[in-house]
């Protein structure tokens, strides 16, 4: 009996350990519904585990945009435009390519299509992303061979991030979350202590990523922005725009998504107004939602997440499609043959 129990425990613990080591196993468990999505209550809740900021993430339903034939849209963006949020149908384009800021790839532009490039960044990373030349897309004449990344046998036997994977495997179910909330509440009430990746607004009503509020870095909404740096960011953005236009793009547009703290708590610190200032320098090439968001600040962001909610997303999409239409109509005016011949 004792031996049977011992062997059962050995097998169970070993399987747990294996699942903790393997991203593939975790992904499979996720598709089988065994492992819940640990972002289901929001990325900020996942970090803080404060029950007062617990809210389910909304699934956004919207109608597909009318088709724009022969329009190819290329995006360089972050999690605000990730594939689970924004899709090809939202723009109605014939071809849609999304690339995250951390990646780069070679593309071949179709000269028979209108090729548009959308460069999107959230405000907290704007100074980092726009400070240097943007070259994530390499425009070439032929598609390079994609080589699968080679995995060393040592990576298989000694995988990375095991602790994070084990924590997700064992403690992301609702029962474990109850205890995590209890722990987080105790730490916050007694010691005023939060996970150092989150921050709470001064009125206690909003949860932000600490990048929005930590003035020791230039990601914060409240960190100083000099005129010289602003000028340099605008010049760098324009240079990237010119580069891609020369490479074959018919239009380049920008989007700077405001930090949640910039909209919901601009007076918690000395807000640097990066979004407004940079948008004014990028003039007609930018999708602007800052003015709309500030009119009703509490309407556009998730309570438990650093990202926008469905209204925020739909509002941005509406502005994005308006600007795309404007770019397309300018293109047709300049080259009327595009509308029929292409």
């Amino acid at each position: 009996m004792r031996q049977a129990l011992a062997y059962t425990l050995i097998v169970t613990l070993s399987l747990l350990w294996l699942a903790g080591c393997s991203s593939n196993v975790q992904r499979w468990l996720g598709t089988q519904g065994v492992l819940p999505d640990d972002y289901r209550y929001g990325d900020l809740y996942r970090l803080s585990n404060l029950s007062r900021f617990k809210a389910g993430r909304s699934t956004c339903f919207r109608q597909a945009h009318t088709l724009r034939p022969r329009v190819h849209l290329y995006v360089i963006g972050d999690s605000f435009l990730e594939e689970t949020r924004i899709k090809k149908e939202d723009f109605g384009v014939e071809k849609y390519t999304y690339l995250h800021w951390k990646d780069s790839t070679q593309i071949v532009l179709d000269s028979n299509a209108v090729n548009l490039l959308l460069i999107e960044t959230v405000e907290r990373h704007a100074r980092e992303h726009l400070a240097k030349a943007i070259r994530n897309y390499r425009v070439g004449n032929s598609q390079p061979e994609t080589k699968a990344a080679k995995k060393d046998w040592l990576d298989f036997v000694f995988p990375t991030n095991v602790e994070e994977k084990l924590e997700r495997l064992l403690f992301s179910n609702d029962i474990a979350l109850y205890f995590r909330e209890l722990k987080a509440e105790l730490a916050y009430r007694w010691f005023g202590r939060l996970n150092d990746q989150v921050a709470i607004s001064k009125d206690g009503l909003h949860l932000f990523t600490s990048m929005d509020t930590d003035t020791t870095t230039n990601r914060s909404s409240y960190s100083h922005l000099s005129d010289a740096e602003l000028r340099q960011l605008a010049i760098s953005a324009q240079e990237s725009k010119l580069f891609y236009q020369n490479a074959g793009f018919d239009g380049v547009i920008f989007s700077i998504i405001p930090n949640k703290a910039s909209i919901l708590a601009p007076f918690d610190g000395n807000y640097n107004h990066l979004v407004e200032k940079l948008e004014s320098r990028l003039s007609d090439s930018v999708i602007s939602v800052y003015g709309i968001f500030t009119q009703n600040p509490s309407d556009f962001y998730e309570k438990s997440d650093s990202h926008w909610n469905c209204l925020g997303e739909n509002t941005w999409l509406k502005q994005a499609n308006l600007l795309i239409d404007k770019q397309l109509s300018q293109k047709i005016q300049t080259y009327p043959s595009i509308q029929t011949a292409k």
Partner: protein
Amino acid sequence: MLFNSLQFLLFFGVVTLAYFQLSWRGRWVLLLAASCYFYMVFKPEYILILAVTIIVDYFAGIWIEQASGPRRKAILVVSLISNVGFLAYFKYFNFFAQNLNKFLPHTQHFELLDYILPIGLSFHTFQAMSYTIEVYRGKQAAERHFGIYSLYVMFYPQLVAGPIERPQNLLPQFHTQFEYRWENLKEGLMRMAWGFFKKVVIADRLSVVVDAAYNHHDSSNGLSLLIATFFFTFQIYCDFSGYSDIAIGAARCMGFKLMDNFEAPYQSSSISEFWRRWHISLSTWFRDYLYIPLGGNRVGFWRANFNLFLVFMVSGLWHGAKWTFVIWGSLHGIYLVGARLRDYFFPKLNQRIPLMIQVGTTFVLVMLTWVFFRADGTTQALQILRKILAFSASDALLTPFNPTEMAFCVLLIGILLAKDCWFPQLPTQRNAPFWAILAVLLAACYFFGLYNSNQFIYFQF
């Protein structure tokens, strides 16, 4: 892998359960394989260093035993050189090179090496050296079983941060088929739980205040640095003794008995007593393999004092390749020599001092040396000491903690001292108190532990 991690808990569970399902032949294979895996999780390539030293010392032990006369000594010297050689290369080369470059700029410039220090190098090297020396002295038979000898060097609970074991204690245990015993499991689990509590609840919490003050010492005032130093005194004790407790407890679950490494060191009434209670495995190692071979107490008074100072200076260097560690060790040497001189010239003076004053004085003297241990450099250490000694009542306490958390830290220190004083061994004989205390400790670890992947301090040595 870190002890304070989920991966280790699963690893420990699997290894301990599997251990008792196997016969002796399977057990040493399991433990050796597990120890190799445990070590390779940090940096797989460095297992080669262990492999070389194990092979050298395994054969050295056998040949020393078979040889006679000067050949025995020669083999021992080769073995010691190989061990010290790895230590010197990986741990001290950059230190000596930097100092030569700085103090002799007109001579050859030494390029610094760029690599991560192999984890646990100082610990398993000393443990291996202990083996060959004991074989040479005739106090230990050479181990013929290569797997068992390898396990002696690599036994995972004490591989990376001790206790530094002696072959007489450990080798016979690896030849023993321990039966599963509920009493051993209780003792082991309780020891581990207390170790985790000291590490994640006390040490890692105190480290927040310490790091805030020491990492921003320019803007910290004397009071804040004094409090941070006081907290560091307990942080390092809980961090290191916590690791030792987890190591001893993990081994005990399987039936092994490792030596105790700490015995309530802050109850010491003298520095020499402090070193009989702090990092016992290291201090006895230096006593047996450096101080006594230098002559111990058998040489003249002044020579013995010089040897004592030298041993503690070397002990400081063992902790790290930085002048601050050398100064830390030297200060302890000065304290010990000072105490001997006091007893030599004023033999009855110490007896007139009340015990509590002696304990308090010892604590303060030790606490002040920790400034060098924690500071990034000598200049920083001296600045901190100057601020501490010059602090005034008007200094405001600058700390990232609110008053409740500061009070909680003081409470934790109180619990630690009370446990050391009145409950040196937590009860495990009766099941009900065992389960109750274990549950309280584990709940405290969960609700009050800080899990910021803080490595154990002694891993860097």
